[in-house]
């Protein structure tokens, strides 16, 4: 009975690592999953009588590997493809768990041959260990459609011959942003969905932070630390972002005592690690910006000049109009609203920008601060027409109503 309970807890502890290693040895997700369960079934039969082995992880991988090979052989015989039979077991090296295996799994789930929604779904199910139902719920999709997406994504990985490996030093700079991008997207899905409009039993922001924590442990890279710091610092404001009615509270109006001090400290710690390695890189720079806000005791004492400089550096790394938009807001805050408006005006030729609701929201806010009430009203209407999220819409509508009262 006691052994039974300990197998249960060993399952939770070892299953992810056994699975990740078996994928490497058996070559595909489903064979590995099957073999994993065979290995634990064998443990249930074997261990109560013979005792738990000294190295349960190695035992499970060895048995899982053997069972997996047996199954593959049986299937191949069934298909009468005897010429494809894999070589005799004697020739094979003893399967070994490698600490890197979970990292290989993560790089595979985030591989560029997969469409972004596939990467998200696969990472959440295979790496974060969520069920199909939980992932579907969190991403507001139908379970049956999401299950199909996962099946097809795995087939795509197999058909495209995606190697199950961590990129080498030379390739890492190109591949790491893919992984970081998926984790950050998961975080932002969670961030924008924490609106109380939908009951979700999984907090995607927490999942993303957990993923980044494992990544930072497995791959000590500055940008991995930077992303973790960024998410911790943003997420620390979770309790202050909404009022009792579930309405959005903008940064400058947030009750800063509601910020999670301990989490900010953890975020600052990771930011320090990141700054030591990659001070001028996208996630580390964004984390540095979040840190400026975190350090300000109130909105008025925010060092906007520093934020403006950080956005300039970020724009040089990633010259995107969205970053230019944020920089314009920082200029408006450190200089004058009109200075910011001039920069926003220069962006109006970008199609990507004029269809982005936050551009119009920023325009509206700066016009409001500058006292251009007609322009502000006009921009709020444009922002509302483009914005689909409940809490943001309510916030924009509230601002618009406040303007109408001051008329």
């Amino acid at each position, binding site marked *: 009975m006691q052994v039974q309970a300990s197998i249960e807890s060993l399952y939770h502890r070892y299953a992810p690592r056994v699975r990740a290693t078996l994928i490497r040895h058996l070559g595909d997700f*489903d064979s590995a*999953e*099957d073999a994993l*369960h*065979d290995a*634990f*079934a064998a443990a*249930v*039969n074997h261990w109560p009588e013979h005792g738990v082995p000294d190295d349960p992880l190695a035992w499970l991988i060895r048995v899982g590997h053997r069972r997996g090979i047996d199954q593959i052989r049986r299937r191949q015989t*069934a298909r009468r493809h005897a010429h494809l039979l894999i070589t005799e077991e004697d020739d094979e090296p003893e399967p070994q768990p490698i600490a890197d295996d979970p990292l290989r799994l993560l790089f595979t789930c985030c591989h560029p041959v997969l469409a972004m929604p596939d990467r998200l779904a696969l990472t959440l*199910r295979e790496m974060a260990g969520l*069920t*199909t*139902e*939980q992932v579907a719920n969190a991403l507001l999709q139908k*379970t*049956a459609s999401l*299950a199909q997406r*996962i*099946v097809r994504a795995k087939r795509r990985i197999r058909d495209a011959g995606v190697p199950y490996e961590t990129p080498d030093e030379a390739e890492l700079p190109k591949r790491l942003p893919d992984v970081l991008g998926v984790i950050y997207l998961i975080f932002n899905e969670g961030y924008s969905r924490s609106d109380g409009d939908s009951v979700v039993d999984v907090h995607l922001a927490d999942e993303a932070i957990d993923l980044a924590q494992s990544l930072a442990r497995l791959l000590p890279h500055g940008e991995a630390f930077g992303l973790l710091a960024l998410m911790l610092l943003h997420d620390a404001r979770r309790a202050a972002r909404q009022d009792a009615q579930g309405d959005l509270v903008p940064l400058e109006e947030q009750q800063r005592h509601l910020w999670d001090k301990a989490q900010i400290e953890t975020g600052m710690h990771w930011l320090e690690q990141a700054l030591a390695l990659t001070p001028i890189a996208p996630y580390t720079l964004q984390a540095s910006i979040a840190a400026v806000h975190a350090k300000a005791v109130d909105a008025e004492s925010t060092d906007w000049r520093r934020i403006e400089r950080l956005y300039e550096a970020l724009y040089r790394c990633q010259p995107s109009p969205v970053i230019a938009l944020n920089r314009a807001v920082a200029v408006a805050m450190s200089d004058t609203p009109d200075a910011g408006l001039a920069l926003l005006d220069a962006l109006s030729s970008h199609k990507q920008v004029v269809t982005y609701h936050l551009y119009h929201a920023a325009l509206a806010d700066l016009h409001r601060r500058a006292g251009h009430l007609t322009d502000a009203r006009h921009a709020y209407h444009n922002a509302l027409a483009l914005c689909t999220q409940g809490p943001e819409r309510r916030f924009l509508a509230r601002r618009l109503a406040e303007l109408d009262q001051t008329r």
Partner: protein
Amino acid sequence: MKYVALVYYQEQLINAMSEPEWHALNQECIAGVERLTEQGYFIAGQALQSVDHATNVRVRNGEVLVSDGPFAETKEQLAGFYLLDARDLNEALRLASRIPPARFGTIEVRPVRELPPKDQTGDAS
């Protein structure tokens, strides 16, 4: 989570099988159930007699009506079911893909629906 895997195939394909082929298929199904049981997934399941042996019951206006069927127009016939305990839908699909008739028929996987709790019928006074 519990899932039911409903096994459908064209009975004429089975009827066209040789005796050794039919025997091998049955043995494969037995081994499959054994493995599902060992791995802790199998709750219940059963293969069914062919639709020739099916009888339908309906009650209309208090009258019990009995008939044969379903009829051969339907392309694939229900041949058996598995009740599985799986972690999630993708795991249930993976297990269902191991059911031998998946190779020539269709396995329909459905999550079970728990009925709402029974109404309280105690004394209202």
